[in-house]
């Protein structure tokens, strides 16, 4: 059985320590981590709000490949090698995705965003950005803050604009 409170879980794991200290990885090599992180950074880029980089998504990816999704790790490393080989073909003189500028990276990803490799990284980026912090990502809850989501365990009406009688100028609700 599992602990029920996310706050408690968030304090528990070594995953969180790694994320918060930008410490080294459990399974990823430093080189692969740079590439996986570069892909995640284009899926949820840093704009005027934090992106995958600030959320520490790469630490989620590392922890997931070490546990939850370990059965996908070997294939993903192999797929990454294929992915990198394609970089050189598309952009002569380049050997790594992380060497490309933002526009080049987007162009390269657009050509293969239906691939199972991209789909997996897409899924992992979202889990790492929006998932509970105990999984290693969502540093400082930046993912939840982006959406306006608050991880509370109890709410009271009014919940939103349209069910708030004070904002409607007339009695509402029950």
């Amino acid at each position: 059985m599992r602990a029920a409170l996310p706050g408690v879980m968030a304090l528990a794991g070594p995953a969180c320590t790694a994320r918060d200290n930008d410490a080294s990885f459990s399974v990823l090599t430093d080189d692969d981590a740079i590439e996986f992180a570069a892909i995640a950074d284009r899926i949820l880029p840093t704009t005027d709000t934090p992106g995958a980089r600030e959320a520490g998504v790469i630490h989620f990816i590392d922890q997931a490949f070490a546990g939850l999704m370990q059965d996908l790790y070997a294939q993903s490393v192999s797929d990454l090698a294929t992915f990198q080989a394609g970089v050189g073909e598309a952009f002569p003189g380049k050997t790594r995705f992380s060497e490309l500028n933002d526009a080049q990276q987007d162009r390269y990803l657009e050509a293969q965003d239906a691939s199972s490799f991209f789909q997996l990284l897409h899924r992992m980026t979202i889990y790492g950005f929006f998932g509970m912090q105990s999984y290693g990502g969502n540093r400082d809850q930046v993912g939840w803050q982006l959406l306006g989501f608050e991880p509370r365990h109890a709410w009271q009406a009014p919940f939103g604009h349209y069910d708030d009688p004070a904002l409607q100028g007339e009695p509402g609700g029950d």
Partner: protein
Amino acid sequence: MTLHCRESPVATDDQTSFDNDEAVDFAIVGSGSAGGIVAKELSTAGFKVVVLEQGPFRRAQDFSHDEIAVSRYRELLGGTQEAHGQTFRGDDSERAVRATWPVAEYAQTVGGSSVHFTANFWRLREIDFRERSVLGPVSGTNFTDWPISYEELEPYYSRVDWEIGVSGAPGPFDSFRSRPFPVPPMPVKSSGVLLETGAQKIGLHPQPAPLAILSKPLNGRAPCVNCGYCMGYGCEVGAKSSTLAAMIPLAQASGNCEIRADCAVFKVDTGADNRVHGVHYYDPAGRERLQKASAVILCANGAETTRLLLMSANNAYPDGLANSSGFVGRNLMFNGHSMAHGVFEHPLNEFKGVQVTRIVHDFYESDPARGFYGGGGIDARPLDAMGPISFAMSGHRPDTKDWGAEYKEMLAHDFTRRLTVLGSTTSLAMDSNNITLDPVSTDRWGRPAIRLTYRDHPDDLSMARFLQDRAMEILDAAGAEIAWRDPVHAQNGGAHLLGTCRMGDDPATSVVDKYHRSHDIPNLFICDGSSMVTSGRGQPTMTIMAMAFRAAEHIAAAAHKNAI
């Protein structure tokens, strides 16, 4: 808050236990919406009961808001596709494919799917029970009347209201009720206000949604705290009226009921005397065991009950136990669904509170003027916008890429501003929609996997599209800034598993009689979604629970008269 009522017991490890070799009065397979009620009713009436539940015994404190574990890794459903092995095909000319999603979706946990369900709780109406007589036949289907009426079931609907716990208020089209709702509707959300506004503008009659969620304390249970994690999640405060919260504790407190969790039944034990003598199951260590019982009650849901009967075939019943009619597994009905989504100017914050607070039942009855059979109901809810991951994975607008800066901006803008208007409809009973044993695939216990063969009747799809057209009108009238619809097409899975062991008076065209007793085997009973003759308009759990109270009463009466 002051609770002026007694404390109710909670589910516990400290319970009666029975010997496998000493026949109990009843072995019940499944602890969900039906099994939990039947177990409570029979054990508190003094009968010795063992409940076999294939999932673990989770309690309120074991539930969480963890989207990755619960929503993506299907913690409550027994795990990913490798665990269940279910397969799906549209018709029997196709090879069934192993599904990546549980195509027959149900929880594996004590309390069954009443633990993870959304808790919409619609009663059937008088018309549902005699629709075939009123409307006439639909060719190519097994559309027929129920052997019971609304009047016969109504007292049990009221028992569900009060003993399980239902919040709500009467609506303009509801059938009669003998008692009022025990607790008032949940506080209306922005989705409810917008549905109400839009529906009224186009001349419809929205009403508060009846929900199996407590708005006030009832029977010693605490009310909902509006945490937002109803759909697909277990309730951390026990306010959702699952059998885990409302019935299992009472069954255990009777001293006559043992809940045996992590035990997967694979065969009903039969004898040469045309009676059943117990159930064979895998215990938590994977060992084969036999629990002896004077009678067996299957409450495992429309998919699992069917599989168990088919796996229990013997010389007397080569096509599956209790299946002389050939109707075991046939007439599977999912209810149809359609979705329209809208984004509004101001935040709705749909991640707070229950999923549904208002519904529209103006189109409940079939109308020959539409040109097809069918009826349904409309609600408004967050759906994907209840959780950050579910929204990011599937909540984005259809015309946006699902990665990059624009996508991120869309998520940030829409998450608090989006709602979904959902249509739920009838499904017609047909031979071609059914559950059989997969010849190849197996589940994690090695049992043959559940194979679903299903394609919605054209009328079912027409009704879903009809409700979607109304949903788009409602969204427009409510002032949505943008609105779009998901294409309606044949479904490839369902959480409502109805009709596969239907009740009826004629043993040639039904599996159980009107009291849920097998036509073929006198001490075998079946009560769950499989008993339903027609699908209703969605939200079948209220009816499954009412049937369970009624079945238990008749089973207990027969047992007292030594007539089982």
